[in-house]
């Protein structure tokens, strides 16, 4: 089953796509990356994800799997030779899933809202909420890592991937707004984790560079605005 061809539909600056890329790299899975144009979705994308019409989509053989965290779990369950992504104990798996869901439902959307914020006041409020979330995630990291380098312990795990995907946008915002979101006083452990994560083989050519990302997002926002006029 693991030998069928693998394609990933996505674009390089999406946190959701980055997550899948980390997982594919972690398991050393050969794959074809098909860059999508979000404002002009391909036939393949619409056919593969007719319900949400969103990236990432992993196509394994001819079977599409959608939604980033779903795809990461799928990869973990199919490619069992490589390092495990999810922890083995159900309680630890529950903890990983809980925080990944927190990131997706409560925290990551804030980052996009920062990019979209038109006024300084709203941006400041949002940045404060981002920081509050990071303080919670710092505590989660300390608990999950048990003194090791990653949420997953000695190696990158599910929660590393879930949060690691967000590092592109997080660093982009730090540059854009000239702020520090991960800092030595409030989130020292996460600051260290981010550095370790970004220099890991699975992540280093995936996490977008802040300047390149911000330029691309600015262009996208302009195009999206023009398209709706």
């Amino acid at each position, binding site marked *: 089953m693991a030998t069928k061809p693998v394609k990933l539909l996505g674009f390089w600056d999406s946190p959701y796509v980055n997550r899948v890329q980390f997982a594919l790299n972690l398991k050393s899975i050969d794959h074809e990356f098909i860059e999508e144009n979000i404002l002009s979705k391909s036939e393949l994308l619409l056919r593969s994800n007719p319900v949400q019409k969103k990236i990432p989509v992993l196509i394994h053989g001819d*079977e599409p*799997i959608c*939604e980033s965290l779903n795809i990461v779990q799928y990869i973990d369950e199919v490619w069992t030779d490589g390092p495990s992504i999810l922890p083995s104990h159900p309680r630890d798996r529950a903890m990983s899933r809980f925080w990944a869901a927190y990131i997706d439902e409560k925290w990551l959307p804030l980052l996009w809202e920062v990019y979209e914020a038109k006024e300084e006041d709203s941006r400041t409020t949002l940045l404060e909420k981002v920081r509050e979330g990071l303080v919670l995630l710092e505590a989660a990291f300390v608990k999950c890592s048990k003194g090791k380098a990653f949420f997953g312990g000695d190696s990158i795990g599910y929660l590393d991937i879930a949060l690691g995907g967000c590092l592109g946008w997080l660093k982009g915002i730090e540059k854009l707004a000239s702020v520090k979101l991960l800092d030595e006083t409030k989130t020292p452990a996460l600051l260290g984790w981010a550095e370790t994560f970004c220099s890991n083989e699975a992540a280093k050519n995936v996490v977008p560079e802040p300047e390149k990302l911000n330029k691309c997002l600015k262009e996208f926002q302009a195009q999206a605005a023009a398209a709706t006029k």
Partner: protein
Amino acid sequence: MEEVKLFGYWVSPFCRSVEIALNIKGIQYEYIEEDLTNKSPQLLQYNPVYKKIPVLLHNGKPIVESMVILEYIDETWKNNPILPEDPFEKARARFWANFVDQKCFPALWKTIWSTSEQYEQNKAEALERLKVLENELGGKRFFGGDSIGMVDIVANFIGFSFRTIQEALKLDVFTEDNFPKLWEWAENFANCSPVKKCLPPQDKLIANFPPAYMGKTLVSSFQSRLQLQFHPPAAAK
């Protein structure tokens, strides 16, 4: 000796999901009803991030968030699996469970809270979502195949409570004419023994959603508890 407790609230479909899963697995548990206007210290201790039910306590350790709890139950008690074994089918089930949880439930919930001005628009959105679900169900008895699985469990609100509430409020969102397959699914679902065991009494449900309240400002303590729990959408600007 396994000790399993569930902190819940009788109307909550998220809590119901957990109860159904526990019943499918034949797990004995103690149910603790929470007063959402006066949350217990244990609830706040076990779920400090969200302070919400359901909370499953297994041998003193809390698991929170209904979807996380369902996966935990399935991974801890291996009998009567609620997720397929095949990774692709499992991914499909997770996708659809998320769709029901993130797209269907909020859309249906909005119709209940609609003012008369908002209703048609909210109803249109709910109909769209239900149509997608009806297509996915296709000719299957349940989303899980021959027996109920995670998607059916997460859709429990559609399967029972929503039909009861919409009848009480005289809404016309989920009808047998519009969604014949989903309607039949709901009948079969509500009659399954793990589901029947934990359904809220129909008359109690109806009594708490009187037609008079549709779109009105929340005044009763029950309505306030519902608001605290489910954070209904802000009124249209």
